[in-house]
């Protein structure tokens, strides 16, 4: 009974928060909307990364590749189609690409898988560059821009659908199976889990959201080229944000993404020259001293407090 009312309370809080988010364009500045859209972008990249890599422990450095696919879908289809059509196409393109890549690479384990996925980002970037120079004869592309509020609402929509998807997967039998793959892949297979299929499909589902995210971000950036679209930073940051926040809980990556992207914004505006330096130091400290991430730290502190209460 207590558990149920507690869950209801959380749900109401979430709905209230969502309502505030939905109404915020009415009373805030453009700067705020752009900032929040940016944070939402990192949330989407980080949480979608966690769907696959969190429970299985396969560290993928491919987010930038799927993000870039979304960006180029947006650039190519931009002027002729409506936004929903482009969004669906970008997401589908990233999904299909991940299916293909997954079939080839998910036999690889550990560091080999990580290096391959990183190679994929570079490969796609180079291929697109080559294509643009030799076939279309351009280096960059102009993407038709959309209004700040459209970007904001679309990003919010993607984030909400993503959170729901991640929650459902995590609490379903497939979430349990993904975790068992991370624990002991061989035993998972002998317990009846179709390990290969599950890995490939969940990898592709996570790519779908990264693709959609790329489509909408491109319309805000308005100019893109291969080095912007396939920037490896969009592979590293989601991983770091997820680890910083902690992957055991669904809120971990969200908190990590919010703090990190705000920190980035704050440091670039306040300390433009030392930004990278400070950022790096914070990262190192976080990884060395917070192996289970922020959520792990909070849980540990909470446990200690409760024990102290119990003792007195």
């Amino acid at each position, binding site marked *: 009974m207590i558990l149920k009312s507690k869950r209801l309370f959380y749900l109401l809080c979430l709905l209230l928060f969502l309502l505030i988010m939905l109404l915020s364009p009415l009373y805030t500045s453009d700067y705020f909307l752009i900032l929040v859209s940016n944070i939402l972008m990192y949330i989407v990249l980080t949480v979608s990364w966690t769907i696959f890599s969190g429970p299985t422990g396969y560290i993928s450095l491919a987010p930038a590749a799927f993000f870039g696919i979304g960006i180029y879908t947006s650039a190519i289809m931009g002027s002729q189609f409506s936004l929903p059509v482009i969004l669906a196409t970008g997401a589908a393109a990233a999904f299909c690409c991940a299916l293909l890549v997954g079939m080839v690479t998910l036999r690889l384990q550990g560091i080999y898988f990580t290096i391959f996925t990183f190679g994929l980002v570079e490969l796609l970037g180079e291929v697109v560059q080559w294509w643009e120079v030799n076939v279309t004869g351009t280096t960059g592309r102009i993407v038709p821009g959309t209004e700040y509020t459209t970007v904001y609402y679309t990003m919010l929509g993607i984030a909400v659908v993503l959170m729901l998807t991640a929650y459902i997967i995590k609490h379903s039998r497939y979430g349990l199976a993904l*975790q068992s793959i991370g624990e002991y892949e061989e*035993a998972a297979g002998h317990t*009846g889990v179709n390990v290969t299929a599950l890995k490939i499909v969940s990898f592709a589902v996570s790519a779908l959201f990264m693709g959609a995210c790329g489509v909408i971000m491109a319309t805000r950036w308005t100019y893109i080229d291969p080095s912007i679209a396939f920037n490896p930073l969009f592979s590293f940051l989601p991983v770091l944000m997820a680890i910083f926040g902690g992957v055991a809980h669904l809120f971990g990556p969200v908190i990590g993404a919010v703090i990190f992207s705000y920190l980035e914004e704050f440091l670039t505006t306040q300390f433009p020259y030392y930004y990278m330096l400070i950022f790096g130091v914070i990262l190192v400290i976080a990884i060395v001293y917070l192996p289970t991430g922020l959520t792990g730290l909070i849980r540990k502190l909470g446990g200690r407090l409760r024990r102290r209460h119990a003792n007195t």
Partner: protein
Amino acid sequence: MPILEASGVTKYFGGLAAVSNVDLSVERGEVYGLIGPNGAGKTTLFNLIAASLVPKPGIIKFNGINITGKKPYQVCRLGLGMTFQTVKIFANMSVLENVLLGSFFGSPKYVPLSEARKRSEELLEFVGLSEAAPTPAKDLTLSSQKRLEVARAMAGNPELLLLDEVMAGLTQTEVSEAMRLVNRIREQGITIVMIEHVMKAIMNLCDRILVLHHGEKIAEGTPEQVAKNEQVIAVYLGE
């Protein structure tokens, strides 16, 4: 029809034949023992049966179906459960979740949550781990972890269970408990193939025993026949 049939099963690792030209046939309801000195190829033979490895050449049939070249999860869903020589539990998942996974995925049909939960709780009761259900599996003792593996393997309602050294590293009392457990599994109509070094257990539990040495079958028969076999004595005690 035998429940498990292997003919001419061979597996090379590089130039070394880990298992060579082994035939075996296990009848339904039997407890079938697999013994041999270290490195004889017992675990490799298990991995071949459970489809972690593919024999070359050789054919393995389960319930008359050729399972050579199938994937481990397919073989599991056909009704073949297994435990591992070195325990391979899902350490950070709870004891109940370990078994739940088997209930969800171990059988070919879709099992709803309520049914899977009921089945898992029954199995934990069966192996004596009910009280430990919510604890992380890594916190169990070795003997409990081995029993957890048995429960997980049984979650998919297998017809055949492969037990790889479930008694190794256990104390005397734990071994007796494990022997009772094997008997109770058998009473449920499940066929068992077991690898074991604890001779007391092998001699008391098994209907028939196969002896492997350097990957080859050197003897097969009832415990009495095998114990009297001169070649087996030579292998175990030296010439």
